[in-house]
């Protein structure tokens, strides 16, 4: 999944260089506090371990092909997000500059796609949540597979977005995404299975290795901020390119009834509810409510100008609402679990 310079515009490449450099500087600042030479040596050797582990191929069942470990999630499990990010970034710098795997300008994108997602999203949000604390061996499998797959899929989506935003490739966004996601889903599942098997091996033979990273609990404070940034980016910018065609349900209804939205019956309760919904919806149909002056004027089609401030605001607002709801649900669940655990003691 290493991107090449040839597929990027200077603006996109430069932006991701800045983002990745900032993330490296931030990670260095976070990890430099303990000044532990032992961990420095460990990070170096484990970075080299990822290189070495990638040389060992295995047979992928049912395909006749072979694959190798990526190592992003495994390194994060062993070192924690900050140190793993630095270690993965250093591996990618060496791969790019000294083995010509990926380009100089593409380095920022590659670090973002291959190190940021496993270290700062997949590991704290998925792996740790599913695997539990202390580690539950029964949940290690789903935790590894789901986190590795999600990390890879997010990276693949990011590759598609970066390439499309650069405007070098003629591949349409949707087609490119359809090419990238299934293959990375399969790779992610295999990566997750290998990561799981390696972690199980380590738990059985040398469990102390997994106790080396003790800072992950503290690191989770950053992650909500990062998620908010991703949500803002997705809702605010990428929503411009959302398809204006009907969704699956609308398409099915249009095929069966000839109408994208079914007309409601003229029942007083439904009419009242519909009227309340219209008054409450501050961004109807994912856009600004048309003012009385503009209501009758002709709208510019989405294909002519995809950049729509109304769509951005509704995208951001929607993302934030989902985040707040998810956070609130998580806190409610946590307090309930806490009460149950305390009651059991």
């Amino acid at each position, binding site marked *: 999944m290493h991107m090449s310079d040839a597929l990027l515009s200077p603006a996109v490449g430069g932006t991701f260089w800045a983002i990745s450099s900032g993330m490296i500087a931030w990670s260095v600042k976070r990890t430099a506090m303990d000044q532990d030479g032992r961990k420095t040596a460990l*990070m170096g050797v484990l970075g080299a371990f990822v290189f070495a582990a990638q040389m060992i191929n295995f047979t992928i069942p049912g395909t006749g092909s072979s694959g190798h*470990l990526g190592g992003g999630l495994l390194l994060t499990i062993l070192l924690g997000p900050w140190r793993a990010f630095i270690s993965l970034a250093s591996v990618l710098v060496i791969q790019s500059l000294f083995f010509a795997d990926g380009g100089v300008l593409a380095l920022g994108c590659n670090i973002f796609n291959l190190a940021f997602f496993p270290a700062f999203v997949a590991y704290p949000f998925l792996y740790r949540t599913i695997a539990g604390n202390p580690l539950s061996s029964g949940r290690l499998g789903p935790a590894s597979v789901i986190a590795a797959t999600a990390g890879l899929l997010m990276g693949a989506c990011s590759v598609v977005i970066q390439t499309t935003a650069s405007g070098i490739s003629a591949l349409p966004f949707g087609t490119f995404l359809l090419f990238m996601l299934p293959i990375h889903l399969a790779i992610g599942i295999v990566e997750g299975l290998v990561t799981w098997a390696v972690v199980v091996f380590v738990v059985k033979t040398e469990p102390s290795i997994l106790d080396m990273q003790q800072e992950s609990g503290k690191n989770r404070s950053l992650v909500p901020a990062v998620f908010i940034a991703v949500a803002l980016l997705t809702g605010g910018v990428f929503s411009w390119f959302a398809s204006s065609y009907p969704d699956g349900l609308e398409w099915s209804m249009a095929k069966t009834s000839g109408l994208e939205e079914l007309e409601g019956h003229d029942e007083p309760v439904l009419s009242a509810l519909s009227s309340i919904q219209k008054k409450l919806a501050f961004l109807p149909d994912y856009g600004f409510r048309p003012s009385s002056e503009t209501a009758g004027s002709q709208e510019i089609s989405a294909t002519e100008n995809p950049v729509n401030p109304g769509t951005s605001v509704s995208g951001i607002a929607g993302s934030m609402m989902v985040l707040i709801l998810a956070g609130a649900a998580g806190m409610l669940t946590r307090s309930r679990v806490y009460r149950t655990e305390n009651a059991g003691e």
Partner: protein
Amino acid sequence: MSEGSVQQNPAERSLPAGDRAALAILVLFTLFVVAVPGNNLPAVIAYGAFPLFVITSARIPLRLIMKRLLVLSPFVLFMAAGNLYFDRQPVFKTGYVLVTGGLVSAGVIAAKSFVTLSALLLFSHSVPFHRFGNALRAYGVPEMFATQLQLVYRYSFLLGDEARSLQKARDLRSFSGKGKDIRTTAQLIGSLLVRSTSRAERIFMAMSARGFGSSFPVRQKEPFTARDGILVAVAILGFCAVRIMFIP
């Protein structure tokens, strides 16, 4: 992983620029090539003159660079093929051959990859890794990251050899593909991981005995001399000249 990049070679002495200047020129060159519009093949080919000039002037064996370049990333080839398929707008016709927009833009993608990668390979062939680390330090890259790069690079060869031995041992004991499955390989990787962490412990003790804190001692910062400044300026002028001549 090639071990050629850790061996001393004559090009290390024959580059006219210092390491900091070489790194700056590499980044600038990449930016200029990447900024060429997607349908301008002549400009990309013209930029290819710069790596060719360095190869001939620094007496770097062309065979080494070509061998690496032949293995173009499958991802780049896939994207170039995508352009071929999706952009079939005819641009011009030569004899019986109809050249489409997709063919031109696919050619540009492949050429850009070829040219930027050859510059990268030249850099890696000419600047040894420890000097690259020092150049990064001189540019203000955090010490911890520079140290990390050097450690990863150093031990990747060591652990690479170990991984090869483990793989060879497994392959010798596998018949008809049996024993090369994910589970067995994961145990192999786990074993490599356990060995790596105990090696890290030994390395730390050895480094501590030699006075290592958490970074490598650097005697002096890589200087950026007046000669380096002139070389960077000349390179920028050259890159701008190509842009003016080939990009309307």
